[in-house]
């Protein structure tokens, strides 16, 4: 059981000529193994800033981030151990894989860096990872450009799982994919989550998948959490005006046609 606490975190960016920008204002939440939290909000609301702080690509201006009660290490082996626990799946599978390297290379690297298995077993572990994300193991020596967008995103997920993390941050993991395969990739993520008891932070602006994929939804507006609660409650019975605006702006054919009657 792993617990990641994000406590009263504030992040300020200094903007040249325009003073300070408050990107996150006193944000708190707790991510635990086996649970999924969806983080929703408009462009610029601070969603990706949270992801960057969690992966230590940025540091918080104030507040604390605790993994099982301990602050995120700043450097060295301890930081590496943190990064073995908390992994990220990026939005754009066309940009997040290195075009010069094979799929094997992408999956071997985290295995070696984090000494997940003995050297002799790396080959078998790579194959096992591909099987876990339902990819043909014959793809192992291909390059990213030989794969479809959905296949690439599955490789990115396999890469994130390679270090056997307990928490996964998925930043818009399906928004670049064709609609007909989005559901398949999300269902795969949900399945992997159950198999490995992962805690997932699902960053999205799609309220419909946020509701179905997550246990809880956190709504962020201009760096402030305006609503945080059970996924169904937040969507079906939103308390905050901003959540209502987001919900009403999302296409919802079911409501449209039932309003027109004759169902």
């Amino acid at each position: 059981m792993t617990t990641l606490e994000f406590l009263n975190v504030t992040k300020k960016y200094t903007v040249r000529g325009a003073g300070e920008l408050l990107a996150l204002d006193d944000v708190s939440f707790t991510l635990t193994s086996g649970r999924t939290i969806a983080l929703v909000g408009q462009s610029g609301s601070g969603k990706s800033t949270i992801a960057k702080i969690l992966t230590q690509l940025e540091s918080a201006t104030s507040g604390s981030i605790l993994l099982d009660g301990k602050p995120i290490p700043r450097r060295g082996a301890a930081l590496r151990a943190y990064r073995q626990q908390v992994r990220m799946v990026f939005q754009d599978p066309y940009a997040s894989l290195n075009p010069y390297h094979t799929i094997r290379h992408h999956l071997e690297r985290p295995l070696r860096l984090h000494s997940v298995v003995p050297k002799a077993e790396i080959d078998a572990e790579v194959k096992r990872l591909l099987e876990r994300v339902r990819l043909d193991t014959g793809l192992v020596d291909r390059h990213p450009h030989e794969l479809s967008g959905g296949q690439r995103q599955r490789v990115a997920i396999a890469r994130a799982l390679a270090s056997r993390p307990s928490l996964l941050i998925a930043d818009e993991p399906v928004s670049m994919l064709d609609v007909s395969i989005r559901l398949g990739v999300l269902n795969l993520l949900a399945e992997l989550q159950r198999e490995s008891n992962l805690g997932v932070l699902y960053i999205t602006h799609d309220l419909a998948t946020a509701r179905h994929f997550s246990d809880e939804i956190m709504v962020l507006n201009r760096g402030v959490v305006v609503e945080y609660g059970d996924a169904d409650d937040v969507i079906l019975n939103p308390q905050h005006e901003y959540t209502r605006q987001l919900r009403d702006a999302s296409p919802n054919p079911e409501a449209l046609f039932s309003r027109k009657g004759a169902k």
Partner: protein
Amino acid sequence: MSSSVLTLDDFSIVYEVDPPVEAVRNVSLTLQRGEILGLAGESGCGKTTLAYGIQRLLKPPAVITSGSVTFHDESGDDIDITRLGASSLRAFRWDKISMVFQGAMNALNPVITIGAQLADVFQTHRPEMSRAERQEESARLLDLVRVGRDRLRSYPHELSGGMRQRVMIAMALALKPQLMIMDEPTTALDVLIQREILQQISELRAEFGFSVIFITHDLPLLLEISDRIAIMLAGEIVELDTPENIYRGATHPYTQKLLGSFPSLTGDRGGFIRGEGLAS
């Protein structure tokens, strides 16, 4: 004045590579004046090729291999676009049919102010206008799409994504076209901005009466805004009907699959799994 604005008859486009790719296959449809036609289908099904083909914007190896595209002008003239010569084609485009391109975030020239880019349209198509008239008309367009005339001297990078998209719409409106083709105009925007822009498109259509071909893969969105929806698969239109009929009684398996790809916001879980014990 004809009640229809555009007729496609047995229209086909082939990419002449080896082996040839039939990107658009025998498409026939009639677009009514003032109608919003939604065009949906997966990546690579031929949506954008069809949109480009209608305006003859295709480049080799794409070749129109059969059929005709007839534009029914307000004046009563019928124009066969597939037969227009180079200079009449140049005069026709943007004046009668304009386009909001996919990835409008990148469709503006980054080193020219948006005022100058708008004025360019008038300089090319309305050479009789004076500089002052061009400027006034560009300013009026920016007011119309609620970017505001004080942004005339802004460069694209100084505007948000939503504002850039509005500038693209202003540019497409400039010559009061009878048909606007919008290729994924709101895909890169978040839901609130998307909703504002859709609202605006619908207001402008009510005011100016143009027709719209709205291309996207977001079927739930099309169900809300379209008068009719065409579903495209492998270059063919496999289903064409009103949103309500598509939603309730889609007959083609691909349409059904596409409808099933979107979990419902407020309804049941459908093809979606969560929590323990649910089979995949």
